């Protein structure tokens, strides 16, 4: 019961949307990075967000609600790398029409930069490609130079 009450209060803190996407369970520290990666600072849609909300799992979480926006899979992949526990609720006419768990794919193509300065992908126009060899913490093995980019070394392209 207590948990449900807490949930209701949380919902009140960030207003509901009619159509669009709610991205929940973003680590609070990654909120502005998520906004930048998804280009939410460059679109005209109505956006509300809350941050430093309580969350048992994450410590402090953030939530983003974007009206009239439905993300493509490769956009969602980008979120997965810095907010691996993020959950998406697709809202249609105030109702949750679909839930999506953001999962790190087995392969990551063209989103992340290889951390190795001597990797060929940092010298020629090549689409990067990584095999995800660990998800928590994230570890990505470059298809080309075979070096492993660790979670704290991940930079988006």
């Amino acid at each position: 019961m207590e948990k449900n009450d807490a949930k209701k209060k949380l919902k009140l803190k960030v207003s509901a949307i009619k159509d669009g996407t709610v991205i929940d369970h973003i680590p609070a520290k990654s909120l502005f990075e998520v906004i930048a990666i998804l280009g939410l600072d460059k679109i005209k849609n109505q956006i509300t967000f809350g941050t430093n909300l309580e969350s048992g799992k994450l410590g402090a979480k953030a939530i983003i609600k974007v009206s009239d926006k439905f993300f493509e899979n490769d956009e969602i992949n980008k979120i997965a790398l810095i907010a691996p526990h993020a959950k998406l609720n697709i809202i249609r006419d105030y109702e949750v029409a679909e839930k999506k768990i953001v999962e790190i794919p087995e392969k990551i193509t063209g989103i992340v930069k290889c951390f190795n300065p001597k990797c060929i992908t940092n010298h020629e126009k090549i689409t990067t490609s990584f095999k995800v060899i660990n998800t928590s913490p994230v570890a990505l093995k470059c298809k080309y130079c075979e070096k492993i980019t660790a979670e704290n070394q991940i930079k988006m392209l």
Partner: protein
Amino acid sequence: MKKDLISITDFSKEEYLRIMELAADFEANPNQELLKGKVVASLFFEPSTRTRLSFETAINRLGGRIVGFADPDSSSATKGETLHDTIRMVSNYADLIVMRHPLEGAARYAAEVSSVPIINAGDGANQHPTQTLLDMYSILKTQGTLDNINLFMVGDLKFGRTVHSLLQAMSEFENPIFNFIAPESLQMPRAYKHHLEERGIRYFEHEEFTDIISEADIIYMTRVQKERFSDPMEYEKVKDVYILNKAMLENTKPNVRVLHPLPRVNEIATDVDSSEKAYYFDQALNGMFTREAIISHVMNLK
């Protein structure tokens, strides 16, 4: 589908054994005109005289013709041509490309771009699979088997690509034991020890280079390179600790052989050269037979 050799892990255990079989065949009969009428491009975007001569001799002994360049100053790369464009062009001309490049991953990328097979002759600090196959051929020749080998690796185990690839390849065989002798700052990286643990393969780490080598079947020496150390004091401390001399070989097993990818500086004292346990110069010769074998394998010549 074309066959490339980019990383040692591209090949299966069966393919390793096939290469070994072919290498023995070429050792018995090095001149076989299997590449007659074929053109091989030898592209060295970074100079490497030893590797290049070994490959080019192998190609000559197979009756093939060679085009290419020996150093980047005489290549179109100096005019700013991309690797992509160079490989696209050359793969129109040649039947096979052998390439060495200073950037890591260059060979994998070239294999994607090229319509003909690519053999990686070294891509930066990443891979040098033909070295690994010649190391394996040397182990097989001197020990009669690739199973049950107690392999000691000495020196720079952190940055040395040859020891990493050899570890991966040898872990495919029965019951190997690895002994790593390195200063704390140059120990075998975690990922490779994990690779062994996953397969239940025994390994031991030592900082001191002592009479524990009496257990060895193979002593694989590497160079401790000054430029790897951020602290020059640390280099001074370890540079002379990992030197193998003839006296140290006295109580070792009769079958033990000393390998080294060459060039050596001072890590193997010259008095070892006259020992029957020294094998590094023969190892280099094995490289030519192994490269004939690799070329034949990727081009399905035999």
